[in-house]
Each structure stands twice: as structure tokens, then as C-alpha cells.
């Protein structure tokens, strides 16, 4: 028995390696199927039977685990505790996985491994909201040091705006994505859709790269700011796209393209909204701050300064 278990563990790692080598091969999601024999569709060139054995063993194991796990009702505390069942090392590993996306390296399957957590998304969003507000404040301070005529104020409302925006993004966009993927479920045979929590997890962890970026945006060199912004957006969007690609590629080309481009576009909007725009000379106090919490004085003043 021990030998078989060891073998199963190694096979799991090799499954991801096989995926990386042959992107056409797809592993079936064991959670959706209890009779794996009829649904194994692994297109592996060499070692076909080896691949089939992997499928059966992995889906057998996950099926067993699913039966054993008993979900408590959602009104009990234990239900919510199951979403926080992570260790420090696991959270750090997930953050590392979102920072370095690799093609074929599915974040959900490789890092989450059917154990999504809410700790990461929640605290990453909270940190990002506070860091945004604080750096917005700091840019104002630094600008005032260079140009004493700018009126400094703590601008506490930025925290609220930033917080609400980020939390809405991390909850509503995955909700829409998850609903859309479930709606298109009929088209897909091989891979089941992600659960809602897994989608929230992917989005939450993908926002981590913005935290150091926002801090680095304090450097008041414009082309450097655009460089950092582009880098952060690329990493973050790549992580999202690589995770969504196995689910979406079985759909029609049009739907896949539209979905992925919408995801990237929304992410870019968030990134642009966070980026501090160059401050100009002081102007009368602005109207309500919109999506970009660091919006400077109104455009008319900026036009005058150039």
C-alpha cells in the first residue's frame, strides 16, 4: 500500500510536467466524475497507458476524498473555518505561484489543489487598499516638498474609495466569470469549471503583484512608472490567462477570445486606476474621487501647466 501511495504522489507531479510538455493533453477533473474509465480522454503520444493509469488513480483518490469530506452547514462557524484552513507556508507558496506564472502551470490545479482559501484574497485586498491610500498620501507629501504651494491634507476618504473598489473587483468580477463559465459548461466535455471560491482565489492572489508595484510608483520618474505598471499588469494578467486557458480553450474561438480579452481589459482598468497620474499645480478641491483615487486636480489646471 505504501508503495502504491508513493507512486501516486510522484505521478501527480509528473502529470503537471506532462501537461507542460504536451499542452494538448488534458487531465480530467476527478471531482466531476465518479466513473473515470468512460471519460478518460488523454491524448498522449508516448506512454499512453501510463497516462491512463494516472488518470484513474488520481480521480479515484479525489473521488474518495470528496466522499469523506463532510461539509458542515453554512450557518455554522466550522463552514467558514474550512475556508481558512491554510498554513503560512501554503499562503507563501500560493503568492509565489501567482508572482511567477508559467504556461501550462495552472494556478488552480497546481497551487490551490482543490483547497481554495479566503485568507489570501481578503488580506491581500485589504493590504492593497491601505497601501494605495498611503502611497497616494505620500505622493502628495513628496510633491509638496518639491512645490510648497500644493496644499497638503491627509485625504482620508481615499481609503474608503480604494477599499470599496478593490473588494468589489475581487468579488463581482469572479462572480460574473464563474456564472459565465457555468453557463457555457455544456460545451466543455473534459474539464469542469472552477468553483466560485477558486475563481475568487485566483483573482485575489493575482492582485498581490500590485502591492510592491504601488510602492515602487512613488519614484517620480514617469517612464519608470509606466514600466513597473506594464510589468505588473503583464504578470498579473498572465497568471489569470494561464489559469483560465484550459477551461476556455474547448469553447468556440470567439467566446474564448472575447472572454480572455475582457478579463485582461478589466484588469488593465484596475491597474490604470491605481496608477498615480502626474500631479500638477494646485487647483480648487476636486469633485468626488472616481475610480482613480490618485486623480490630481481637474484637467483644466493640467492643461494650463504644460
Amino acid at each position: 500500500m505504501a508503495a502504491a501511495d508513493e507512486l501516486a504522489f510522484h505521478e501527480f507531479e509528473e502529470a503537471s510536467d506532462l501537461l507542460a510538455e504536451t499542452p494538448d493533453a488534458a487531465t480530467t477533473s476527478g471531482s466531476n466524475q465518479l466513473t473515470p474509465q468512460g471519460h478518460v480522454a488523454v491524448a498522449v503520444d508516448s506512454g499512453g497507458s501510463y497516462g491512463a493509469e494516472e488518470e484513474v488513480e488520481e480521480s479515484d483518490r479525489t473521488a474518495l476524498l470528496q466522499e469523506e469530506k463532510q461539509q458542515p452547514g453554512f450557518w455554522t462557524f466550522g463552514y467558514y473555518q474550512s475556508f481558512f484552513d491554510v498554513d503560512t507556508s501554503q499562503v507563501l507558496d500560493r503568492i509565489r505561484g501567482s508572482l511567477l506564472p508559467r504556461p501550462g502551470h495552472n494556478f488552480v490545479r497546481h497551487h490551490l489543489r482543490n483547497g481554495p482559501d479566503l485568507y489570501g484574497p481578503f488580506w491581500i485586498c485589504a493590504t492593497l487598499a491601505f497601501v494605495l491610500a498611503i502611497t497616494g498620501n505620500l505622493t502628495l507629501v513628496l510633491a509638496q516638498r518639491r512645490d510648497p504651494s500644493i496644499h497638503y491634507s491627509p485625504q482620508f476618504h481615499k481609503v474608503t474609495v480604494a477599499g470599496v473598489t478593490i473588494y468589489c473587483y475581487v468579488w463581482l468580477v469572479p462572480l460574473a466569470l464563474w456564472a459565465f463559465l457555468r453557463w457555457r459548461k455544456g460545451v466543455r466535455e473534459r474539464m469542469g469549471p472552477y468553483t466560485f471560491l477558486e475563481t475568487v482565489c485566483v483573482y485575489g492572489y493575482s492582485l498581490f503583484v500590485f502591492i510592491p508595484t504601488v510602492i515602487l510608483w512613488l519614484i517620480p520618474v514617469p517612464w519608470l512608472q509606466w514600466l513597473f505598471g506594464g510589468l505588473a499588469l503583464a504578470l498579473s494578467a498572465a497568471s489569470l490567462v494561464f489559469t483560465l486557458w484550459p477551461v476556455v480553450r474547448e469553447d468556440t474561438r470567439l467566446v474564448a477570445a472575447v472572454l480572455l480579452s475582457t478579463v485582461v481589459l478589466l484588469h488593465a482598468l484596475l491597474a490604470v486606476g491605481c496608477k498615480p497620474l502626474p500631479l500638477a499645480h494646485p487647483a480648487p478641491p476636486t469633485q468626488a474621487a472616481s475610480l482613480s483615487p490618485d486623480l490630481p486636480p481637474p484637467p483644466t489646471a493640467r492643461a494650463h501647466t504644460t
Partner: protein
Amino acid sequence: MAKAAESSGDPGTASPRPLFAGLSDISISQDIPVEGEITIPMRSHIREFDSSTLNESVQNTIMRDLKAVGKKFMHVLYPRKSNTLLRDWDLWGPLILCVTLALMLQRSSIDSEKDGGPQFAEVFVIVWFGAVTITLNSKLLGGNISFFQSLCVLGYCILPLTVAMLVCRLVLLAEPGPINFMVRFFVVIVMFAWSIVASTAFLADSQPPNRKALAIYPVFLFYFVISWMILTFTPQ
């Protein structure tokens, strides 16, 4: 009439006897009187306590509570691994500290609505909802501290930051300048570190060992935000 204790089973029985099985065979002789008083010190103490607090003067009541709060302040200022904060939790100290901090941090009414420091209500909400969120987080991660104990610890550990606020307020009476800012920055940093050390000393033991960092990080964020609010405070 003493009853002889019967032999406790045949020596040769192979079946294992349950524990203390032979006790039921022993009976106490009636000519050995058993007398005495059984007092449960805790309960009688409390009963005496209760009846006396009704009659005591208001000053006594207030002083007793103030002394308890003061004792906990001392525990925060000199953090050692002790259980006093956890065992006799109370929320008076956090309330006093939070109200003081919010009163000192609120912006004057001359400031415009949007561009300014936090209002009294905002500081209050941040402190209490922040503490509640951290407590929920640590309980969800599997910590075995009770809800109010955790609120008590987090609230009391704001004391160093309140002291920092007082010092900053005094320093701001002097002329503004880089030295002014440096002094305030230094004071806030030191008090922030003190808060973190104090709360970690009390809270870290109640977390599962491989999740300590996960539970402490929100505390760090919480005190960081409060320190930021203190540091950026500008009187109008």
C-alpha cells in the same frame, strides 16, 4: 458494625476487572465519625463580594475598575508573558483609549469635507471593526482565544500609540520643520514597534504553531494604519 471487605474476586480469574471495582466492596464503619466543614472558598468569596458591592460607595466602585484598568496598562507597557490581560478581560481600557485617540485625531470642522483627516466616527470604526476583523481572522485560523479576550488585548495595546499621539500633539506646538517631523516619526515608529511586541506577547501563544505569521500579520497592518493616521495628523 464493620463489614469486612469481601475478597475482591478470585485470584485466579483471567477476566480483567474494571478500575476501582473493589471500592464498592468497602464500607465505612459507623463508629468513625466524619465531621467537619467543607467550604468552597471561591463561592463564599463571591457571595460576600456581591452583597458588599451594593453597599459600597460610588468612589470605591470607580476606583476598583480604574485600578484594574491601570494594572492592565502596566502589563501592556512592560509586556511579559502573563495571563492577566487574558483572564480578567474588560473593555473599559480599550474604550477609553479609542475615544481619546479619536478625539485627538479628528479634523476640525473648518476643513473641507473631502480633503482632510479622519472624523471621530471614522477612527472609532477603524479601531473597533479592525479589532473585530482580526479577532474573527484568528478564530477562523483555529486560534483558541475567546472573542472578547482578543478584543481586550488589541484594544489595550493601542496604549503606546495613544501616548505617541499625545507626544506628537505636543511636538506640533513647536515650529514645523524637518526636525519636527523626524522627532514625530521616531516616536511613532518606536511606539508602533512597542504595540506589536506587546500584542504578540499576548496573542501568539493562542495560535496554532504553523499559522502564527498568518494571525500576526493583520495585527501588524492594523497598528500600521493607526500609526499612519497619527503620523499624518496636521492641526489646522
